[in-house]
């Protein structure tokens, strides 16, 4: 069966202004709105579109994290995923651990494609998809803004510093999404009801042969240095004068 595996990470919603805890042990997450990582929503949308074109039969969403993550999996099922896998753990999951868990799931599920976000907007690591492709020994097409599935291959356009790069990759492969790949659909109320009946399996990392290890110890969190508020100028002339006096323009 042509299956697509999609990673769904639960993160602090992108509209939340994240604050560091006064004691420097982390950021405030209590009572803060949580959502699917925006890039993962795009990953799921892309998988659903590929399925809707008849190029895949099943979309499986996967998350790794504590019990609460099931909320985001349910949302993903409501968007249209067929089933969900929850690798439940309270441990800190570093990208290499996440990649090892995904690799182990890939061995079981044998997907033609794994689609992940290019980066999780909490840790901003931008690593997991690339690590997964290395462990899997398969192609990676990161930062995708266009995906076309062909016969055993995918043609992917990537947003890179120099412009838009197009790669052809053999399947199976890993794709990571950039913002302009698509615009995710909204979830409709009846779909939320239907999603409650879709299968959601819970596993443990150990059952997949992976022991989460914390190699990167966070020892202190700080707020970023603040830029002080500057001055308001009244018109273009005053602005140019100010920039000239600082030697910023001739």
């Amino acid at each position, binding site marked *: 069966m042509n299956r697509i595996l999609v990673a769904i990470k639960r993160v*602090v919603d992108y509209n939340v202004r994240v604050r560091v805890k006064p004691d420097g042990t982390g950021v405030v997450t209590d009572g803060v709105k949580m959502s699917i990582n925006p890039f993962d929503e795009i990953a799921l949308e892309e998988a659903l579109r590929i399925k809707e074109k008849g190029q895949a039969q099943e979309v499986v969403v996967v998350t790794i994290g504590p019990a609460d993550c099931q909320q985001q999996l349910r949302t993903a099922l409501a968007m249209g995923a067929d089933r969900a896998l929850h690798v439940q753990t309270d441990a800190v999951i570093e990208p290499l651990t996440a990649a090892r868990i995904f690799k182990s799931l890939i061995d079981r599920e044998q997907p033609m494609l794994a689609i992940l976000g290019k980066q999780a907007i909490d840790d901003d690591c931008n690593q997991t998809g690339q690590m997964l492709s290395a462990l899997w020994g398969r192609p990676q097409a990161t930062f995708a803004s266009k995906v076309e599935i062909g016969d055993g291959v995918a043609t992917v356009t990537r947003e890179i510093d120099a*412009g838009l790069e197009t790669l052809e990759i053999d399947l199976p492969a890993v794709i990571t999404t950039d913002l302009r790949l698509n615009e995710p659909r909204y979830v409709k109320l009846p779909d939320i009801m239907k999603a409650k009946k879709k299968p959601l399996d819970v596993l443990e990392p150990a059952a997949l042969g992976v022991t989460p290890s914390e190699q990167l110890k*966070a020892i202190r969190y700080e707020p970023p240095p603040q830029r002080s508020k500057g*001055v308001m100028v009244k*018109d273009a002339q005053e602005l140019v004068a100010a920039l000239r006096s600082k030697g910023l323009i001739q």
Partner: protein
Amino acid sequence: MNKILIVAEHDGSRLNPAIAKCVRCARDIPDANVTVLVLAADPAAVAAEAATINGVDAVVTVANPANAQALAATLAPQVAAVASGYSHVFGPSTTFGKDLMPRIAALLGAPQLSDVMAVESATRFRRPIYAGNAIVTVEVAAGTQLVATVRVASFEAAARGNATAPITAASLDVVLPSHTRFVSLSAARSDRPDLQTANRVISGGRAFGSADNFKILDGLATKLGAAVGASRAAVDAGYAASDMQVGQTGKIIAPELYMAFGISGAIQHLTGIKDARTIVAVNKDAEAPIFEIADYGLVGDVFQIIPELERLIG
């Protein structure tokens, strides 16, 4: 001694300026010995350039026609083959480094730190998270091989010197995959300075309303010798190319002068410009959040202000 391997980004003939910044970052590690690795079809010119950067102790080249395109799947196993014996493997936090370094890390079984902004010791580094809303200090156990990308906006470029580091060619016995093939690159050709290294950057946002209107930035950019950037909203709407996006998921820049026209100042955008020396904001909404961080704010209409600035700068 800490042996640091820096993977060179280049276009086949020139070294990317980000590499001199990686060298500076590597030099902040105590007792550092720095090697630059150049993988290319013909690495000679790039290697010669790398060898003149102050603080580079050695340059290693790997020549292979397969390296003509920077494909992570092709480059990663070669870097991994060279990397044993190095305590740190660094690359720039450009799309090249972001794509490649984690693939190397996984092959090495090593953890990666992304966007290193400061070095505290050989095992302790600082990096931004949550779109720069928090800075975390991270420590790895001594003896752990570490892969990292260097946040280029945080480091000055190491200067070029007169000395040249020795250049040696490595020959590797690595099977390279054929499953990933380069098809094409469409680059918006521009005579403007590169966005990531420009001294001056002017950016436009959703305010412009069309790709044609966005072009009114061109005249001012020419007068200032500035690169042109854009907010995500401007890129999404098709006013500007995707490689012009500044911010959390675009380019992180640190010019001397940044001018934001018709950009509201969402946190994801601000994250890309925090290291700019001077920020100027022009917005018709006096309450726009961009004014909170601007050194000079001007409430006004971009369609009126931009031509005025162009005339005044003359």
